[in-house]
């Protein structure tokens, strides 16, 4: 019992020492909660619309007929795009793409209406900027859909003119209609898709970096790690005491961002709250251990931060949220598995978006726990190695 109280006291002493360190550094305090929340607000503002609307496109109407004007009107009426310019020639339309003033050009060639009536099947072309893939493909889908509606209308009329009734003419236009529904996130909201994934990825940088700073500061300090180890008594108590303030701060940030996401921003939460809390805690711990291990491997604070930056900075591409993991090369797949955020985001998707039963999420949860244990083990091992000689030296000096 007395032993246990002693250990707990060690934890408390390290914790208080760490809190004093944080208190003495306003920069560090800023980075604990205000800065990540500020970034969340910034990112939320970027994606505030959820779905882009009124993307500018330009029209080159060389036909100037009733039909061509109808096409322009229908295209303009789709919520995703807005016809903001009209050009006389295709090269003028192209110039709009090059200056970034439009994402697409609709070309309606001369005699389109006449050719439709004569059954010559004229061609209407949409050129869209696929270098800007998100707006480009949105423009392609909505303008292509709108022009398809116009073409379908003509087709229905042609069939009715040939004596078929309205109903069968309408059915014949689209013989194999597709009823597409997105399982999970059916409204295809970018807030749910990107913002919910970007925030934990950014937080992983913060969490790793703060742990790295905490440990490498001790290593650089005059007293060194030995002092913290003496305060803590044991390796685990020392590590726990040092990291606890950050664990708490970043859990609050993580959940605070979630509270904003699922509260005022109206994202749907479809899973188990208990499980969400559980993998959130393991995620923060694993990211901390990653940062701490990096700090103990690196020689100085700047290289420790650089190491954390190299590991966590480009992490988003590896998580498979934008470009799927199933199409990645072997290296990327292995690397992705070593990043806590990959598994955290998978668990989030499973739980919040899909409402999947717990057994489905077990492999990812096991990965996340193993990462926490492995990086934690490395941290303790290095702490023991770095702390030991100095501990021995100070003991030698005092006796």
């Amino acid at each position, binding site marked *: 019992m007395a032993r246990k109280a002693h250990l707990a006291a060690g934890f408390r002493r390290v914790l208080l020492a760490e809190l004093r360190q944080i208190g003495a550094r306003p920069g560090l305090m800023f980075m604990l909660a205000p800065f990540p929340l500020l970034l969340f607000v910034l990112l939320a503002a970027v994606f505030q619309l959820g779905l882009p609307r009124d993307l500018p496109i330009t029209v080159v109407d060389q036909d100037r007929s009733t039909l061509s004007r109808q096409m322009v009107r229908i295209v303009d009426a789709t919520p995703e795009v807005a016809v903001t310019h009209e050009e006389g020639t295709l090269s003028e339309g192209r110039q709009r793409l090059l200056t970034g003033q439009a994402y697409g050009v609709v070309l309606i060639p001369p005699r389109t209406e006449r050719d439709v009536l004569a059954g010559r099947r004229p061609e209407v072309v949409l050129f869209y900027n696929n270098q800007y*893939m998100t707006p480009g493909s949105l423009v392609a889908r909505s303008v292509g859909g709108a022009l398809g509606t116009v073409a379908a209308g003509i087709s229905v009329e042609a069939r009715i003119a040939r004596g078929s009734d309205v109903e069968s003419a309408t059915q014949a236009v689209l013989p194999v209609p597709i009823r597409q529904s997105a399982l999970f996130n059916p409204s295809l909201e970018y807030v749910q*898709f990107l913002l919910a994934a970007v925030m934990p990825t950014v937080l992983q940088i913060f969490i790793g970096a703060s742990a790295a700073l905490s440990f490498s500061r001790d290593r650089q300090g005059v007293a060194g790690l030995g002092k913290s180890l003496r305060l803590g008594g044991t390796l685990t108590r020392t590590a726990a005491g040092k990291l606890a303030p950050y664990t708490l701060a970043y859990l609050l940030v993580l959940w605070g961002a979630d509270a904003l996401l699922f509260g005022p921003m109206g994202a749907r939460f479809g899973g188990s709250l208990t499980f969400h809390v559980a993998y959130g805690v393991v995620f923060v711990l694993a990211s901390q251990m990653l940062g701490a291990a990096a700090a103990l491997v690196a020689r100085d604070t700047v290289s420790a931060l650089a190491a954390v930056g190299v590991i966590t900075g480009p992490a988003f591409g590896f998580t498979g949220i934008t470009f799927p993991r199933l199409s990645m090369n072997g290296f990327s797949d292995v690397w992705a598995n070593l990043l806590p955020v990959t598994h955290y985001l998978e668990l989030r998707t499973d739980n919040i978006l899909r409402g*999947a039963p717990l057994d489905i999420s077990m492999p990812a949860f096991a990965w996340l726990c193993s990462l926490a244990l492995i990086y934690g083990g490395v941290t303790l091992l290095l702490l023991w190695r770095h702390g030991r000689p100095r501990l021995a030296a100070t003991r030698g000096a005092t006796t």
Partner: protein
Amino acid sequence: MIAAFIREIAAAIQAIWNDKGARSTMLGATLFFSVFFPQPYLSEVVRDMPVAVIDQDGSTLSRELIRRIDAADAVAVARYAADMPSARALFLRRQVHGIVVVPPQFERDLLAGRAAPIAIFSDGGYFLLNSVMSSALSNAARSLGAEVQVGRLTASGVDAAQAMAIVEPLRVTTVPLFNPTGGYASFVLPAVFVLILQQTLLMGIGNLKAGRRSAGGLSTFADAIVYVALYSLWAGVVLVLLPWVYRLPRIGDVAVMYAVAVPFLAAVTAMGLAVARLIPSKEGVIFFLVVLGMPLFFLSGVSWPAEAMPELLRTVAFAIPSTTAVPALVRVNQMGADLRSVETTIFVQLALCLAYSTLAMAIERWKKGPSA
């Protein structure tokens, strides 16, 4: 004067080489990130995404539809499921990323000229997989439907050309420009490379200058010249050589690229000097820059359209060189834009360079003020 300036230039080069942090960010990190960052995207497009099929019809035409779905490059029919619950279970386990349901009497309805709908379930949690699913399926359904329709019309005595004119009176063609294959690496990397230039240059300057006193105007000017020159070389590597190595489309004029890149690098350098004087600690500068990488990428409007962002945010973001330089360099390199199309950006970069230089000098004067 000229000799002194040359000495300062040499000193600036030496300083980069002698400072470990600067050497590893300005020389090492730039190259490292440009090799490391592209890794996840190198296969460019999704191929053979596994989908599950529930064929409740089991007819010749339903099998033909499934064959056409499987024939698409992007998807592959991986599993046949008996019912929705078992298909859903495969989906939750991520063994398939889409489900196709062909209802009973699909063939009968289709041949009788009635609409024969199919149902598809895609993954709204992963946007790329979702759009892969819809484009592969709509192509298969459209081609099969049109074929059956034309067949029905010609069977009723209409000649082939006229049948086509009824089925498709107006051809709608969509032509993707600049990134014709819709490759993900081709889309993301040209923008990311520009951002890597900005961030590593800022980190390098932070390493060299944060918390140190300025060694005078001439020395700072020589430093700036060296940074811009070094990064102009990097711009050639990262924006011309690497796209060639990774086979990304690049059609731009290198001279136009430099007309944007040099003012951009000058603006970044001026910003770096100002930031290094504002944030006194090296660690602070580096951390700040690592964290800002991703938000800055989204602010550039390459992945998320700038039109969809709040006006205020767009205005504030103008203060960061990458916001306008990333899209401008992408337009030059990947879309072949000429000088006229990017002149606004060049002026913005020059204005930023002037503004940040003024700011850096003002901070310096203000810092000296109390002590003098």
